[in-house]
């Protein structure tokens, strides 16, 4: 609960001072990126059907091993993790869990984003530098 007096004028602008409004905007942006990516992903995977023994598909997968595309993949991981963990927060709020400490819940979720991202970043940079996986 905010101790500041309730704003009666220009309510929309006041909302942008709240964490929740930025969480909502980033949720939307990451969601739209993922919708676009899902379409592209289905199209790319379907190239397995475009030529004999998946030749087109294999050529594409080879191209995706380029460092720039590995980094783009890593950027996509950020969108996925943010959307997933903010989504967890939304569901927790829907269930009435942690409503009273919703900002703390948000920052715990963001900490999970950072930790899981670090794992993916380690794997991606290991691959870019050594050309090998970590497993």
């Amino acid at each position, binding site marked *: 609960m905010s101790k500041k007096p309730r704003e009666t004028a220009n309510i929309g602008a006041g909302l942008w001072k709240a964490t929740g409004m930025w969480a909502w905007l980033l949720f939307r942006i990451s*969601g739209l990126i993922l919708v676009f990516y899902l379409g592209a992903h289905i199209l790319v*995977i379907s190239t397995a*059907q475009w030529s004999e023994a998946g030749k087109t598909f294999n050529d594409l997968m080879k191209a*995706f091993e380029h460092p720039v595309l590995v980094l783009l*993949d890593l950027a996509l991981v950020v969108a996925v993790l943010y959307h997933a963990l903010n989504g967890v927060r939304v569901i927790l709020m829907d269930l009435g869990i942690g409503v009273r400490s919703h900002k703390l819940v948000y920052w715990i979720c963001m900490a999970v984003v950072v930790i899981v991202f670090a794992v*993916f970043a380690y794997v991606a940079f290991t691959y870019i530098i050594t050309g090998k*996986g*970590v*497993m």
Partner: protein
Amino acid sequence: MKAESVTSHRGGMWAWLFQRITAVLLIVCLAIHLVFTHIVGIGDISYDTIGDRLAHAGFIAVDIILLAAGTFHALNGLRMVLMDYWFTSRKRALALTVVLWVVGLAALVYGIWALWPWIS
């Protein structure tokens, strides 16, 4: 701003519920997908290695759930965003819903066709 425009279930209770059910499915299946495809399998993705993975029924189930739940979640999410801007009237929202269902079912069929060489 009207109160109804900020509630998350404006698109209908069933859509709201399925958005959450598919969200949970996506978190579980996407975690499996990302670990096996992009951590364990990084740099080793090809027509053949995917075939090896999809020889297991469990991985086929994961991919089909990702396709179906992902398509629903993505298009319903897009629907919620679009309904905030242009498809605000009941009539426009209905038209949008119908179009997105057609697009979604087409994507589902196309996606299963794409996976067919590995799962059949």
